[in-house]
């Protein structure tokens, strides 16, 4: 390894594979640390919310899940674009590895949102701009995963997925604003989430939980990308050596 940070060196699957293996436990540790701290702050220390009662504690789960679902889509599109532009094999694999985790976070955001909505608004589902956009985001993830799954040639799957992810990223703001516009026209279902000035301790709890989800997402994505690397590089010598080594 030469001095300095060499992108080409680290973007080779052969170097990345063991490196990722070493990093995964650290991200798990961080995820556990932040998760326990966030849950203690959110569920044990934070006082009740004057307007929403104890049910508000779902935000410690809901908001991080929503943030991650949106953030992961952006990161996924970033890796996909990088893979498309520079033909980095690894970054396309990274995009592929992120998609299921992002979809799961979108699902969790909808699930916790529904369970939050029922006691707060009296309905499991309202056609609020944010909820609707989250649902559409889940559809976009599903489309990306389905497209990659149905193309056999991995290189074509990478590129087609990248184009879809980029088209999706361009469309997400358009979809969001059109849904918002649609929502304001149909006043009946508009929901005002009480914007009570959030106590500092609540904010801290939420940030800790978000950090935990972030670290979790990195750990899981690294695990998945290692799987993808093994599968795709199975005919190379280094994978054969790796297979002989592993218990």
């Amino acid at each position, binding site marked *: 390894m030469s001095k300095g940070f060499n992108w080409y060196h680290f973007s080779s699957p052969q170097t990345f594979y063991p490196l990722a293996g070493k990093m995964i436990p650290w991200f798990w540790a961080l995820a556990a640390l932040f998760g326990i701290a966030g849950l203690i702050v959110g569920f044990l220390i934070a006082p009740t919310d004057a307007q929403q009662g104890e049910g508000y504690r779902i935000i410690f789960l809901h908001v991080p899940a929503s943030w991650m679902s949106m953030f992961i889509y952006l990161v996924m599109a970033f890796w996909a674009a990088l893979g498309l532009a520079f033909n980095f094999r690894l970054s396309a694999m990274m995009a592929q590895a992120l998609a299921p985790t992002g979809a799961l976070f979108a699902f969790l955001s909808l699930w916790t949102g529904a369970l939050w909505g029922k006691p707060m608004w009296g309905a499991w589902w309202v056609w609020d701009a944010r909820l609707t956009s989250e649902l559409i985001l889940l559809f976009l993830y599903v489309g990306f995963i389905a*497209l990659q799954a*149905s*193309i056999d040639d991995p290189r074509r799957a990478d590129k087609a997925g990248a184009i879809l992810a980029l088209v999706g990223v361009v469309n997400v703001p358009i*979809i969001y604003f059109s849904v918002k516009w649609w929502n304001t026209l149909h006043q009946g279902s508009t929901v005002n989430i009480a914007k009570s000035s959030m106590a500092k301790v609540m904010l801290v709890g939420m940030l800790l939980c978000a950090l935990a989800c972030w670290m979790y997402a990195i750990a899981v994505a690294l695990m998945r990308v290692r799987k993808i690397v093994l599968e795709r590089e199975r005919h190379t010598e280094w994978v054969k050596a790796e297979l002989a080594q592993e218990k």
Partner: protein
Amino acid sequence: MLNAVFSLIARDLRLGMRRQADIASVLFFFIIVVSLFPLGIGPEPDQLRRLAPGILWVAALLATMLSLPRLFADDHRDGTLEQLALSPQPLGLIVLGKVAAHWLVSGLPLTLLAPVLGLQFDLSSEALQALTLSLLIGTPALSGIGAIGAALTLGVRGGGVLLSLLILPLYIPVLIFGAGAVEATVTGVGAQAHLSLLGALTLAGVFFAPWPTAAALRIALE
């Protein structure tokens, strides 16, 4: 350069005319889906009038969806697409020509048919006008955005269903502003704002969509 595009459109139209059954199937799909709704929700005119914009627009989306897999498939099968990709014209321009031809044989007939179907829903003449106008403005965007999906799923197994999975979420803004325009006319707000935004979507869609479509076609041809 434009001549080549026009001759491509003319060729696609000629081919389309030879396969009139396909065009007719798409139109009848539209008619049947729209006619199913009153049977499902009941014949009260007030309710139908309120639901008509959404129903007609969703049915138009689905009908367009149905015609999309064929957009590039035939040319792909007989090798024409490869020749087109190698021709001196930029592939994006060729895609634009194919999108235009697709709109002429799917979006335009749907638009012309829609006011007749609107009568089933007891829409007023202003609402029918708004419906026709919104479809006229909006359906080119459907062809344009749909071309991206058609190119991405070209030759992929399960292409038809996959195509709808990819493209329907992207159609949502067009649906919102298209159906919204009709609804705004029905409620007396005026469709101006909706139609302007719909026009902007169409312009953006038709202008930008050929690029990712061309890129996806190149990938499919590799």
